[in-house]
């Protein structure tokens, strides 16, 4: 026993082990992973550079050239690759511009709900007490209620706008993070590395941010990835119902709703945005599953 206090043999677990930034070998199932990454890459690039990619102004109406056929139809031309809608607006340009809207919603709503939920979960799990029970009741109520209904109500109250959609999504998506993080913190708080950090006088804030947070980061990232499809579909559903983005914003959900009346003669006007939503949501889910298997072997399901 050394007089210093910390036994060398007992101090095996001061902090979770460091992870390599890049794996030595190609990860399992890498061909599929490559496909996911390409789709994600295209989605992000199209979203960021939407204004440079679109050949036409996506809001430009042209009543002379309304309902133009897409390029593979006899009447189609490369001028409007995916044809035009009932007001003569270029479908391809609108899809790209809609990608931007989806990207904005994902890039704000997911980090927003993640930070809020993680902070509440950390505090609830570490401090326990009144804050814990209050926030967990709130989580229960939130998880038990029909999100869409309340989102619709809130959207109707505040009026449709992109900002309101983001706020609504954050309000509805923080709860799973809080519950997950709290549960992990509860099991971590008795571990030796936390005890050791406390013994040498680490503050609560330091414990939470430097010791607990790194240990729960994997789970949070997995949840966030699996949330991508939820966010995409929720935004599209609200916009489809007219309670989503405002009239000035182009969204895939709104495009589906606009094409609805033309379903009989121009199915692709609802088909393109619908398929796009589906591909992004699908890849989000698949990538999330892959990430869960890769990051968390204990959680690995035979699915």
């Amino acid at each position, binding site marked *: 026993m050394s007089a210093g206090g910390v036994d060398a043999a007992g101090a095996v677990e001061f902090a979770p082990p460091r992870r390599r930034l890049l794996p030595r070998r190609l990860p399992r199932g890498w061909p599929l992973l490559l496909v996911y990454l390409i789709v994600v890459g295209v989605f992000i690039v199209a979203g960021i550079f939407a204004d440079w990619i679109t050949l036409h102004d996506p809001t430009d109406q042209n009543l002379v050239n309304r309902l133009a056929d897409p390029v593979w139809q006899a009447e189609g031309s490369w001028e409007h690759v995916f044809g035009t809608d009932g007001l003569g607006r270029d479908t391809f340009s609108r899809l790209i511009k809609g990608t931007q809207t989806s990207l904005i919603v994902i890039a704000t709503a997911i980090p927003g709900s993640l930070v809020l939920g993680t902070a509440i979960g950390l505090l609830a799990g570490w401090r326990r007490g009144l804050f814990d029970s209050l926030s967990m009741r709130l989580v229960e109520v939130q998880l038990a209620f029909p999100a869409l209904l309340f989102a619709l109500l809130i959207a109707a109250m505040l009026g449709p706008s992109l900002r309101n959609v983001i706020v609504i999504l954050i309000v509805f998506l923080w709860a799973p993070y809080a519950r997950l993080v709290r549960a992990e913190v509860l099991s971590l708080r008795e571990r030796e590395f936390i005890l050791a950090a406390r013994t040498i006088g680490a503050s609560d804030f330091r414990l939470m941010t430097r010791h607990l947070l790194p240990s729960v980061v994997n789970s949070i990232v997995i949840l966030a990835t699996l949330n991508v499809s939820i966010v995409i579909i929720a935004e*599209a559903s609200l916009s489809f119902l007219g309670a989503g983005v405002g009239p000035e914003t182009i969204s895939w959900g709104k495009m589906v709703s606009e094409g609805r009346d033309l379903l009989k003669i121009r199915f692709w006007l*609802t088909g393109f945005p619908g398929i796009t939503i589906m591909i992004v*949501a*699908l890849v989000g889910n698949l990538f999330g599953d892959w990430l869960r298997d890769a990051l968390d072997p204990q959680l690995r399901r035979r699915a």
Partner: protein
Amino acid sequence: MIAHLIPRLLQSIAVVFVVASLVFVGSRLIGDPIKAFSARNATEESIEAARERLGLHDPMIVQYGNFLAGVVQLDFGDSIHTQQPAWNEVRGRLWSTVQLSMAAFVLILVIGVPIGVLAAVRRGSVPDLLARLVALVGQAMPNFWLGLLLIFIFAVRLGWLPTGGRGSFENLILPAITLAGFGAASAMRLTRSGMLDVLSNDYIRTAHAKGLAGRTVILRHALRNALLGLVTVLGITLAQLLAGSIIVEVVFAWPGVGRLIFRSISLRDFPVIQVGVLVIAVWFVVINILVDLSYNVLDPRIRVGSS
């Protein structure tokens, strides 16, 4: 059992109360219903009279008190749009929404669960791969789009089924499939992973070893245990269906509560919104209690209150 139930009931009443209050605040924030309704040339006096009649002049706290007193007596005031009692408006459409939800729930049970079991038992086979693929796609498909796709294929192109409305059995098929889509996909995936977990247990090997028929092992020993984990999820699914039917009802012009709420929000018909949202909230709470109870019945190990 009773001792366990009472706190749950109190908690549920508290939840319904909170929802009622939120709905009250929410529906007052939507906007001025009188403005939305009165004819453009309505006189100041007639607008004032309408406000007076609806009690919109009273202080908020009085309106809130009246509202809560009304909730207890199922009196929510008249619909601003149709002048009929709001409760009657909702009650008249409740059955058609319940019908749609139940049809979807039955589909989830008879499609999602058996396919999940089959996929787990025949793990890695072609049916397993197909089922997983369909479930993945089903979970990624927004239900409004699935609905429009089905309308396009079966109503517009093939002409087999009507595009919307309610009446005959044929009207129910497409909306029920649309509403069931996501839930069936989730149920399938969860049944499959639940079954795989159970099938790896020692007692399953024992059951096989002592010579039980494969069917008995799967149904009696494995499925019963796998169902435990499923009950909660199926309960949540059932509760979500009622809310999820908003979109499906709008897509298929199905005359239910969801479509009524959707229309009432745009018309700012707040008495109807309040009843509609409260009905769905009560439905949620009831389902949650039932799930709790069924859990106790199904799993003797956690039977609460008997000890």
